[in-house]
């Protein structure tokens, strides 16, 4: 792979002598090179370590987007300049992320896309800010990412706040439409940043919308066993279960619940790692039936999205949300570079800040950044029906009717 070789060779040079490293930094940064050459884009993903799966999925989306841009003529306002990936492995840690940002800065990238996990995004955006390097966050949900006043940081996807509000609004809508069968709720969440943060918001908001929280059950990631969680759920017998967990733990929980014949009126997940995951549906069709999720999702109305899904599945991989998100983020960046007609960082940052890009494959409408947060961003409600995952809200592009309450 070309990008791999380029990176390897450059790193080898760096390693050869410190003088070499010094020379590299003092040399003309590549973004001032003549037009027609390639524009380097940093793709930062945790492709090894605990988050490796998600990182690799994100990397895939970014690579496919770069290919798509290059295959359709590159950056036309710069004489057809191609995008060139500088890949960085964040190694699932913030210091891995910042090290890679430094590497990318050294390579003279025009911008960086990715990060995935909130701690990595927080550290990497900060490191990038030192160089006024524009950084597009792909997933990182913690709202602090866009609350630090960093001019270089843009988040294309929604954060906790937007996701939990939408999830709750849609839950109320769902419940009302079915005649309010659900009153009592049990929250299950993983005890890390993502689960705890979400649980806190839900705990504050659910009672205001007329739901009673019977219990909040935290579990570690990884969890060796979810039997006790299932036991507690059975003991409380809630109408609704709201789980926010990663893939492995939710799979364990769903299977255990099936074994223990625990069937609440609905399982309404929020940002769940398994509920909108095709692998889960494929491997456990029974346990997955009728599970709902409020999560990131692609826009099924867009041809490009459907085509991308086919492309990914043809490679034998599953189409996950962060593939679609990273794909969109890179397209967003390409558009900004196009409009800036330059690889200059300040111009790209300005172009991003004023972007109205609508050529992405997410259901966000035209882009609009306010303080770095894309205003149109929002999650979507999904449900596993049969062997497929259908969109049930928003109505604008729903392709399935919600099944709620779950038939006994």
């Amino acid at each position, binding site marked *: 792979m070309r990008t*791999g070789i380029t990176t*390897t060779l450059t790193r080898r040079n760096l390693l050869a002598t*410190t003088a070499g*490293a010094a020379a590299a930094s003092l040399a003309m940064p590549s973004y001032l090179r003549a037009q027609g050459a390639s524009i380097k884009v940093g793709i930062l993903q945790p*492709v090894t370590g605990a988050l490796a799966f998600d990182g690799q999925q994100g990397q895939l989306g970014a690579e496919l987007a770069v290919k798509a841009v290059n295959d359709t003529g590159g950056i036309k306002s710069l004489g057809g300049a191609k995008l060139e990936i500088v890949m960085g492995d964040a190694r699932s840690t913030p210091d891995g992320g910042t*090290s890679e940002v*430094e590497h990318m800065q050294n390579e003279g990238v025009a911008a960086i896309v990715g990060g995935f996990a909130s701690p990595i995004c927080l550290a990497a955006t900060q490191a990038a800010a030192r160089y006024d390097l524009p950084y597009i966050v792909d997933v990182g949900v913690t709202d602090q990412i866009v609350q630090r006043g960093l001019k270089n940081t843009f988040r294309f996807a929604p954060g906790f706040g937007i996701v939990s509000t939408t999830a709750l609004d849609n839950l109320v809508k769902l419940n009302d439409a079915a005649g309010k069968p659900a009153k009592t709720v049990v929250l299950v969440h993983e005890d890390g940043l993502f689960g705890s*943060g979400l649980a806190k918001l839900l705990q504050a908001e659910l009672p205001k919308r007329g739901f009673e929280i019977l219990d909040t059950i935290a579990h570690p990631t990884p969890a060796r066993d979810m039997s006790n969680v299932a036991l507690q759920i059975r003991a409380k017998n809630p109408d609704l279960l709201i789980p926010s967990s990663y893939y492995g733990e939710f799979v364990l929980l769903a299977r255990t619940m099936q074994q223990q014949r625990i069937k609440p009126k609905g399982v309404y997940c929020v940002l769940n790692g398994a509920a909108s995951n095709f692998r889960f549906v494929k491997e456990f069709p029974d346990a997955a039936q009728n599970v709902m999720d409020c999560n990131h999702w692609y826009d099924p109305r867009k041809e490009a999205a459907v085509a991308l899904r086919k492309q990914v599945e043809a490679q034998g991989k599953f189409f996950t949300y962060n593939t679609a998100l990273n794909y969109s983020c890179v397209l967003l960046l390409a558009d900004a570079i196009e409009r800036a007609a330059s690889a200059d960082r300040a111009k790209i940052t300005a172009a991003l800040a004023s972007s109205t890009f609508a050529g992405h494959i997410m259901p966000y409408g035209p882009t609009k950044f306010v303080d770095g947060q894309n205003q149109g961003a929002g999650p979507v409600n999904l449900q596993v029906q049969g062997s497929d995952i259908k969109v049930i809200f928003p109505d604008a592009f729903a392709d399935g009717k919600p099944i709620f309450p779950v038939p006994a």
Partner: protein
Amino acid sequence: MSAARAYGLIIGVVALFALVPLAGPSNTLLNGMVLALLIALAGSGWNLLGGYGGLFSFGHAAFFGTGAYASAILQSRYGVNAWAAFAVAIAIGAVVGWVIGFLSFRSGLRGSYFALVTLAFAEVFRIIANASPFFGGAPGILLKLDIRPANFQFESRAIYYWIALALVGLTMLVMRAIERSRLGAYIVAIRENENAAKALGVNSLAVKLKAIALSAAITAAAGALYVQYFLLVNADLGFGTWISIDALLAPIIGGLGTVFGPLLGALLLHELGELTRAIAGGVPGIDTALFGALLILVIAFARDGVQGVIGRLFARMTRKTAPPAIEAVS
């Protein structure tokens, strides 16, 4: 070795390292060096207890995280000045070290038992830090970005580098001083044969407590510096096994119970990591797998070599003087 020789070598090495940022290196290199120095510092703390004292700890993360969290909490929650918080964090680290030491040594824990109990303490701290709102819970604690020297935040990476280097240098001087002191003699005596030392009147509990308190303080300093550099700490970063492992890898690779061991080992590990990434950047995981393989090979074939190199270096340096009062033998 005369005092001039003993300390002179350390000062010379530190001075040499201090020149690096002046040669105009890339930020990548500087960033890598800062991280390596942080590990060297944490490893120096470990080295005092494990290298000189023979008490291998698998949970030095407990002290690293204490330093990081203490500093972060003091600054973000109580508005304490960053430099003062740094100093207090080190003191708190020492206290925590003393407490864990007291509990462990009073029960007579040694060897693998001691290693495992430190591991358990680190895990307990991690779980509590993750769950407790006082420690910021799962999201951890974010320090506000406010770049002012008075706030211990700097625009230039070089300054962090020099501060880390100064701390490492200071630690090395302290280690050298201990080596040449009675305390050092007691520590090594206890390592070699605790019963014999006790029979000769050494208060082994007091000595071990001093050692662990100092060891913890040094590693806590590394943690507090980490949080100033990244402005972020959470349960996994502060108390995770990664730092426990790095803190013991560096001195073992570089030379147990030697002054330069942790620094040497930290640099070697860093270079090893860079090397493997350069060779195998393509497929995710290959480079770290290679790192593991290289680690095994280094132990298998260069183990004596690394120590041998240091040994020969020292021998040459000290050729004309009397043998050192204490032989730091691994």
